[in-house]
Each structure stands twice: as C-alpha cells, then as structure tokens.
C-alpha cells in the first residue's frame, strides 16, 4: 500500500475524471481489458452514488503491490446522508434510480472485495478491491 490519490466528486463530469485515474492505475498494475472495464464501471457507480445522493465526496485509489498479490483498492467516501438500511440497498432488484445503473450489488459483482461503513447523518465509506489475476 504505497500511495493514495483522490478525485473529488462535485459535478457529473468528475465521474469521468475518477474513471480515467482509476483506469490509468489499473493499466499500470497490469489488469486485462475486461477487468479495466469492470473497474471503470464500478468507479462510475460509486462516483455517481456520491454525486446523486451525497452531493460531494471523493474517490481514492490505493495500489496494492507486495510480494504475494497486486491489486487496486477503490475507496469512495462522502459526508452525505448515509445509508439507513445497508442490507436493503445490497439486495438485487432494489433501486432508487429507476433501474438505471447497476447499484451497489453491481459494484460488488464487478470487484473482488467489497465493504461498506455507513452512519445515517454522517456519511458513507465504501472500500472495494480488485486483484490482478
């Protein structure tokens, strides 16, 4: 876990910036095309959630590169309203956006590891990792 870099999410176009940075890091680490696309889609989902529900927040990247494994950790954090019922938003078919977007279950599928910490009224932090295969 060497260094971390972040993209602030304030407007819709920041989502693109986050994707770009994420993709560059994924390429550097040696992810294949399909996994690059998956990581980019996961970043989009996370960034869009911040943009839609929290207003502002940030997407940070940590590259994991030690002896045993290489991977990319994507951390989405905001000080928004938080998630009341995490189990509910992790259910397939649950939607607040009218079915557009893959939602958090989608992010979980796209990545290898997924964790949420959220407190209503305080904010949300989602950490996901994808390993280079």
């Amino acid at each position: 876990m060497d260094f971390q870099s972040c993209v602030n999410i304030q407007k819709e176009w920041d989502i693109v910036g986050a994707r770009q940075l994420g993709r560059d890091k994924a390429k550097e680490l040696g992810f294949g095309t399909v996994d690059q696309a998956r990581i980019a889609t996961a970043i989009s989902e996370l960034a869009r959630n911040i943009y839609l529900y929290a207003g502002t927040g940030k997407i940070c990247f940590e590259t994991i590169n030690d002896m045993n494994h290489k991977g990319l950790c994507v951390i989405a954090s905001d000080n928004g309203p938080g998630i009341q019922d995490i189990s509910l938003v992790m259910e397939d078919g649950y939607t607040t956006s009218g079915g557009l977007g893959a939602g958090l279950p989608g992010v979980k599928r796209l990545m290898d590891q997924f964790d949420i910490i959220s407190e209503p009224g305080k904010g949300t932090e989602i950490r996901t990792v994808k390993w280079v295969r």
Partner: protein
Amino acid sequence: MTNLKLEIDNYKELLKQYILSLDEKALYQAEQFSKLSMQHNISPEEIINVHIQALKDLYPNLPKEVDNSLNFLLETMISYGLAYQEFQSLREKQLELKSEISVAAKMQQNLLLTEKPTIKGLDIGAISVPAHQMNGDYYHFVSGSDGGLGIAIADVIGKGIPAALAMSMIKYSMDSFPESQRSPSVILENLNRVVERNVEPGMFMTMFFGLYNQAKQTFAYSSAGHEPGFYFDAKKNEYSEIAAKGLVLGVAKDTTYQEYEQNVKPGDMIVLLTDGVTECRIGDRFIERDEVLQVIKRYENYPAQEAVEQVFKYFERLQGFQLRDDFTLILIRKEV
C-alpha cells in the same frame, strides 16, 4: 482455467472457419458455444474479449481503429453483463421463494383440513381449489354429537398469502367456540369480533354459516355478505336463491346477524359457493349467476361429490385451465 482457455482456442478455430468459408456449420457451433458459455456464467463482455483475442491472433495487423472500436464495444457491454448476472441471481431467488410458498401451501392445507362427515340421510359433496398456490377460500364441516351438521363457507376479499393467513385464523377461532354456541347468527357475531380486532383494516371476509338439524329436519343459516347459494326444492322442482342479509365480517364491531330457517324435505338440495364460481370469467366477460345454475342443473342427478367435481371441471375448462379466483362449491342433498 485450462477449460476456458480451451474454449478460447475453440472460439478462434470457429471464427477462422467462418471467415474463410462463411460456413453455416460454424455459425451453428457458435450458437452451441454461446449456450455453453451461459451455462458457465460467462458474461457478454468476456465473450467480446475472447473475440478480440481470437481476432488479434488470427490477424496480427488489425487496423488500430478496429482494435479500439472493439474495446469500445467491450466497455459498452459491461452493464449488460451485470444485468445478466443480476437476472440469474433473481431467478434463483424466485425458485427459492416458490418452494417456500409451496411448503406454506401444504401447511395451510393441513391446517384447514376438514373431514367431510358422513351424516345419515345426507349426501355431501365439497370442492375447493385455489387460483394460486394458497387458498383464500375456506369451508369447514362441524358435526355435532346430536347428528346435526354445521357448514361454514368463507371467502377473504383478496387473494394469495394474506388471504390464506386470515383464513387460518378464522378456522382456529371457530374451533375454540363451544359446541353449545352453534347458532349461525351467534357464530358470525363472534367471528366478526375476531376479524374486526385482528385483521388489518381494508381486509374483509364474507361468510355463510348453516346448521342442519337432524331431529327437526331444518336448515338454519346466517350470512355475512356472502355470495348467495341456491336451494333446490324437489317437490316444486325449482331452484331459488338462498337470500340472507348481513354485513361482511370485519367492518363494524357490534354487527348482528339475522338467522333464517328452511325446512328440508327429501330430495331437496343446498348449494353453497364462493364468488370464484359466479365470477368465472370467459375472456373479458363475467358469467351470469344464471349460467352457473344451468351448469349445476346439468349435474344435479350425480352423487354430490361427483357433481361438484364435474361443475369445477366445466368451469376450469371454460377459463382455459387458469382460475382467476379461488373456487369453492358445496352441495348437500337430503336423500329420498
């Protein structure tokens, strides 16, 4: 992993075959390939990736634009892949739910099980078939120590699981009433209190309760807004409606019910039903009560159980074997 690799090679081979010969056989094999991939939960973007790899192997000097455009396509397919995975997991969940409901339905059948009693001088037939897995109709026979027979038939307004749950409650509260309290009006008044207290507002139940008195040869009954049945007078060879007024259960706390009485003579017949019978639909049209009666008449000389089964079969077929509502029909004939 080696397996997948094999499949990629397989794909490459097929692609080559097709590009060289435009062979239908290769297309057929591509179809097999896609089915196999689905069996292994391989999502669309992975197929596209396989395609890109195969194409690059076959044509190392692919124009950069084509290469880039294929990557573009791959990105575009990611969301489809996710939707496909979500669909798979929802389908599994649906199967789970289905089997859970079928367990519940079996439990309900056991809970609501009522034995058709053998009463001297009466021929009884009864059938109740749910439209979905769980039944919101209900009938129940209570045979008294005096050789009398109580018959309850009820219908929850609404279908499915909530209706079925409400019905189980009715059955158990009825079981808890003492035998001395079997007058139809008193039973309905008690049940009305139970329903009013325990069922959420907006859920109503109609019910008919009849009591056949063996000694007096009378049929006493009260109705809580239930679909009227028919009474066949053998002497006059005439059917008439079993008219009875009464508010549906669960509307007001202190509802009282009027009790009616009918002398039962040999050959007479009592027909009780739910609106699943009279509201059979053919296309967009509800059938008329009169049509129901015509069908019942057609089988009136059959033994009671066979008659109700035949009437059910008739309406089942009429509706294209897809019941719109739970169907319950009871026939009680005083033997000659």
